[in-house]
């Protein structure tokens, strides 16, 4: 039996991103491993603009390798888990107490909405 498609539509993704304020921002460490942090963000002109404190190791990692993944997740209950993962290249703002990391919403976006598992079959 084919698995049900529980991904979000582009409109659902836009609404989900607009309704949330906190993201996980991940980068590749210079040692080859990975690292991540949590940051506030806003949706602006088709891009996620996250704000990280100056000196955050994720900023250093993104300056060395600008490939980034930003994930926004809601977990009010298991049946209501929703998440959007955005992959792209980061543009890093100038140094300030909070440094902006901007990631355009490109084609490499993955999403899921567990509530769609409970919908009747189409």
């Amino acid at each position, binding site marked *: 039996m084919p698995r049900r498609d529980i991904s979000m539509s582009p409109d659902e993704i836009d609404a989900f991103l607009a309704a949330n304020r906190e993201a996980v921002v991940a980068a590749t460490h210079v040692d080859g491993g*990975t*690292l991540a942090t*949590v940051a506030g963000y806003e949706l602006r002109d088709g891009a996620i603009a996250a704000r990280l404190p100056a000196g955050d190791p994720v900023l250093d990692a993104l300056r060395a390798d600008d490939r980034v993944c930003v994930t926004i997740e809601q977990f009010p209950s298991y049946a209501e888990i929703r998440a959007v993962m955005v992959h792209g290249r980061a543009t890093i703002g100038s140094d300030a107490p909070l440094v902006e990391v901007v990631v355009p919403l490109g084609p490499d976006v993955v999403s899921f909405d567990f509530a769609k598992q409970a919908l009747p079959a189409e």
Partner: protein
Amino acid sequence: MTDEVGADEDAFMQANSRMFLVVARGDGSPTIYPMVGLYRDGGVECSTYRKSAKVTRVLRAPQISALITAAEGSDDRRVLLVRGRAVVHSPSTMAGVAGGVNPSAKEVPAEVVARAAAAMESQKRCVIRLEPESATFLHVVRPEPEA
């Protein structure tokens, strides 16, 4: 608790199951998997399908990390970054784990735990275990929760 992980960090790992697994894709770029984590013997574990992309990626690049937070709405706003090496375990090496899903995790319905256990028994699922090499509470600026 390992020498690399302090007591507070170890206690936080034990107390919280909201986890974001951060692994490298085939081209080396990072990706994130929201998971329900299980603390066991100083490490963090999660279960998944053996044929999933995340298992392929972890086997190819085992140096990974996990970001652990308290559940949504918690007063505990700390964020723990655990970095280390991942190992993929088969069910035969995971005695005592109910399908790799934390049986005490209130977030996971009983039928999901049972289904995961059955899939584990049939070898369809496996466990990704992260052996911490470091665990650090991050300095983060988080938005205040909605009133």
